[in-house]
């Protein structure tokens, strides 16, 4: 703003955030450089496309979750939600032959789960991490039961385009990622609902006493998180062309990691979708690197877990310092 007087302490809000985003971008760049030295296979077109595709997928999962974490909540049911949505969508596609019905089912299921989570958190006042934790187990159980150990595969080509198709040499999921980054960022930064969500995360009591309909907004973020999970499930389906009960199992931790690495604070009120994108990129690069270096895939949850802990610790430190 032009009214900033020179000589007074810097306007802290924008500079600090942009600085942090730049650091992260730098970290991502550094990772790329390091990896290109460590492995010849890194800078190949095939691998780059792979990284982009994985990042896109991770971002789609983590974008809705970002909104939830912005309100100082958590959605541990994302992975299970993806699993259930994917399996239901798969059956519908198989049964009716119509990809669009499948899409509707997937997104619909995800949204419904989100609605349930939102209801548990706002109406029953159950803390979000417990509510979504219980939901996670319920959904996992339902998914396994529904699939009965079987696999569904073979989807129509038009559907598979979503996950495997290219446009101008770039995988379609990447375009979707950019689209949702745009939409998501616009929602968070350029709508009044986005502003209210930030306010709720920063101080829910003050937000409520300022007339923000807190319960309604909370339900909204869980619904969006669920819907995005539903969407992500479709892309996964389209990519791997099959569905089985354990699809979503290992996805929750990376999604949370992406959001936290991206700079969104677990304690609410600060963060952004672009941050989550960079976080998704960084995490994907790390895991990609591990793959290229032939490190046992079993180490991945370990690394992801450690990264999550590091990110939270840094966040908690920063919080205490500013108090």
């Amino acid at each position, binding site marked *: 703003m032009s009214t900033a007087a020179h000589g007074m302490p810097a306007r802290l809000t924008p500079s600090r955030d942009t600085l942090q985003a730049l650091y992260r971008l730098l970290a991502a760049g550094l990772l790329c450089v390091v990896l290109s030295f460590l492995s010849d296979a890194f800078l190949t077109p095939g691998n780059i496309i792979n990284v982009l595709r994985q990042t896109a997928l991770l971002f789609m999962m983590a974008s809705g979750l970002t909104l939830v974490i912005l309100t100082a909540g958590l959605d541990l049911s994302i992975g299970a939600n993806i699993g259930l949505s994917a399996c239901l969508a798969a059956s519908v596609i198989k049964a009716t032959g119509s990809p669009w019905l499948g899409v509707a089912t997937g997104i619909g299921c995800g949204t419904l789960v989100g609605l349930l989570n939102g209801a548990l958190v706002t109406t029953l006042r159950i803390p979000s991490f417990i509510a979504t934790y*219980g939901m996670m187990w319920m959904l996992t159980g339902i998914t*396994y039961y529904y699939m009965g150990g079987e696999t569904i595969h073979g989807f129509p080509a038009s559907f598979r385009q979503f996950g495997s198709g290219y446009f101008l040499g770039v995988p379609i999921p990447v375009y979707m990622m950019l689209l949702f980054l745009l939409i998501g960022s616009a929602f968070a930064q350029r709508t009044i609902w986005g502003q209210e969500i930030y306010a709720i995360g920063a101080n829910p009591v003050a937000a409520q006493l300022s007339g923000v309909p807190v319960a309604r907004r909370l339900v909204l973020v869980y619904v969006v998180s669920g819907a995005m999970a539903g969407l992500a499930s479709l892309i996964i389906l389209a990519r791997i062309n099959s569905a089985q009960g354990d699809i979503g199992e290992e996805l929750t931790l990376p999604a949370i990691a992406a959001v936290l690495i991206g700079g969104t604070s677990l304690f609410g009120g600060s963060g952004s979708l672009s941050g989550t994108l960079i976080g998704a990129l960084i995490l994907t690069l790390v895991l990609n690197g591990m793959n290229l270096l032939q490190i046992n895939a079993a180490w991945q949850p370990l690394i992801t877990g450690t990264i*999550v802990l590091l990110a939270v610790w840094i966040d908690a430190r920063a919080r205490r310092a500013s108090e």
Partner: protein
Amino acid sequence: MTKPCAVATPSLLARVPGVAIVLAILFVVLGLTSPSFATPANVANILVQSTILLLLALPMTLIIMTEGLDLSMGAVLTFASIALAITVLATGSVSLALLAALVVGSGFGLLNGWLVAALDIPPFIATLGTLGIAQGLSLVATDGQSVVGIPRSIQVVYSGSMLGIPIPIVIGAVAFALLCLLLYRTRFGTYVFALGGNREALRLAGVPVRRMLIAVYALGGAMAGFAALLMTGRMSAAHPTAGLGLEFDAIAAVAVGGTSFERGDGWLIGTLLGVVTVGVLRNGLNLLALPSSVQVACIGALVIFALFVDGLRSRA
């Protein structure tokens, strides 16, 4: 000031109805729907199988009383069992193997405690992180394969009996007694109540709060390590994914048993009944040939219900 102000009734009376009723109803329903359910052999079976869960749920009760949570217990149990299996196969010594399991368990417990108490990381995130770590270590150490060929000396811990009572039940009873002693008759137990009920009071009283909190989580890890002995004995093998998800049953048992997540209130008999309830539920649904996934869904619903009831109670 002539008449006494209040009677010292423990809240036993207020809470017995809750979980005991649920248990009784379950028993009746399952007994009616499944002929093989209400037999003495089956009941004994339930109790034996529930012991592992009991060993997890008891320290989980304490952790939850401090307004915390340990999501990593199942993964730690798994990794401890792998450590135990590898050790016994390498050295042939049961005691060394048990030691290995205990070291692993306590190590993770201390890590959890340190993350929560010293680094101020919210418990569910901290233990979610260590869950990933433990899970990863399990997979790496075994390359995804089960460790088989567990000697009889370990198997007998689960299948043997002492004076006609199955060893697991003896272990369970001893663990229950020790934890009751710990919670209700030692300073440490008193401090556990305070950690959840009014941490500030403890600080003002000059008690090292951080150390106490770490100890609570360490206890959870240690008992998970001990439970690994039973689990490995039961399966005669150590699978890299065996115990995963057991922490969920433990949390469910504690919630159903009436321990609140937010008030520093907790009772071990409730957890015991909760463990039996979960065990009964699983057993009954097994006999009805419902797959594990449905059981999990049911337990999930049970937890949400228990939390809802708990929320009503605290608002009343």
